[in-house]
């Protein structure tokens, strides 16, 4: 499952998580399945959580006329 999850996108993981939660909340899952789903759900939530923490804050860029991508600094309001 871990294998599988690692190739999931964040959206897929969230979707799976929601489904798992939904099913568990319906309460009609056999107990053995429920604990497995709980484990799966916890893994998914961990996965999603990590995905959101992974990257540092990105800087805005600009595509110049030359086709280069350079950092872009937003003009301050004050300059206008």
């Amino acid at each position, binding site marked *: 499952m871990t294998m599988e999850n690692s190739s999931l996108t*964040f*959206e897929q993981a*969230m979707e799976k*998580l*929601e489904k*798992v*939660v939904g099913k*568990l*909340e319906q*309460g009609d*899952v056999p*107990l053995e399945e*429920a*604990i497995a789903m*709980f484990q799966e*759900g*916890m893994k998914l*939530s961990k996965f*999603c*959580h990590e995905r*959101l923490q*992974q*990257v540092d*804050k*990105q800087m*805005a*860029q*600009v*595509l110049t006329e030359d086709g280069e*991508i350079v950092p*872009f600094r*937003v*003009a301050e*309001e004050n300059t*206008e």
Partner: protein
Amino acid sequence: MGQDYLSVTDLTRKIKRLIDGETGLQNIWIRAEISNYKYHSRGHMYFTLKDESARINAVMFAGNNRFLKFRPENGMNVLVRGDTSVYEPHGVYQFYVKEMQPDGIGSLYLAYEELKKKLEIAGFFSATRKKQIPPIPKEIAVITSPTGAAVRDIITTVQRRFPLVNITLLPVLVQGPEAAPSIAQAIANANAIKKFDVMIVGRGGGSLEELWAFNEQIVAEAIYESRIPVISAVGHETDVTISDFVADLRAPTPTAAAELAVPDILELRKSIIERKLRLQRAMHQRLAVEKERLNFLAKSYAFRYPKQLIDQKEQDLDRLVEAVRRETFRILERKSGKLTELLARVERVHPKHRLHDEKMRVSKVNKALSRAIKQTYDNQENKFVFLLSKLEVLSPLNMMKRGYSLVYGEQEQIVKQVDDAPVETTVTIQLQDGQLLCLVQDKTYGELPNGNWSDGNDDGK
């Protein structure tokens, strides 16, 4: 001839019908100058439309002028759309204005309407063509002017909401004659780079002319052909451009576009935590439910008081055993009761009673027998004694007691007459206490005296 006069009303009505039926006079656009403008207190507008060589009365009812974005004035050049008709009471024809625009930009409106109709027919606005905006994009292309509030609003909003996303600005001209090609080119470029998940195309607010590039067909086509989902963000909320119609998602402002393009990371985190919590809660609840259910079962009467299973049966058994005993004893009792009853009856028919009765009977009969024989004997004896006494009374010998006597001759015959006993014969005289043997000496005849005899017959002798 004289009969063919029309009434004025008929004539007027004919004229009205004629004008109303003429399509070239209905739903037409007219370019004119306003004069004699009057705003009626009830909201209707009355004015004259004129040009250098003609004029016509016009009216715009409140229902139509309510959405006008400007206030008409005398001398103002306007484009009006409406119908020509006749006001019958005055016999005047006039123009009924439905829509009015200031002239000058009026041409742009016409172009806008024309293009909108055309693209709509071509299917550019079709909902089925709209692409899904990715919920969490990694790369965002922003196509707008590098200066101005729009780009700043977009970038800061995106970075604030979702810092993990890459923003790439594709700077374009957003007004002036070069704007449309510039925008169309940037859209194409963004598609060529192939790394963007979504693009925001737009600019800040401005006049219709300033926003015009976004009403150009070239831009519409570029948006339409973009494989990357496009969020349009042109001007303010009230400005609706062709680009807005074509775009996959229309944002009312650039800031709104940024908000639509990326999710709020805090919200996302919150939602993950929330799901995690729900997960745990669901599991806890499930466990709790099952535990409770199990507890309930384990604490059930049957398990808590298993002896009850037996107790009932113990009692049933007791009842039955008791019944067997009771019924058997009852049967015995009944039988013994019956026997006792029979014994009493046997006692009653004891032969000693019978014997006693029979003895009494014999004794009684015996007595009766004795009594009967005695009676019989006594009867006969009494009868005999009675007869005997009677006989004795009747005895002829009784007369002798009174002095009479019987005289018997020698032949022992009774001597009744003198001659029955001859003289010298012996006679026997029978007296009461004996006999006298007498010799007859003599005889005398005579009669027995009459009269007194019979009376003294009883006691005389």
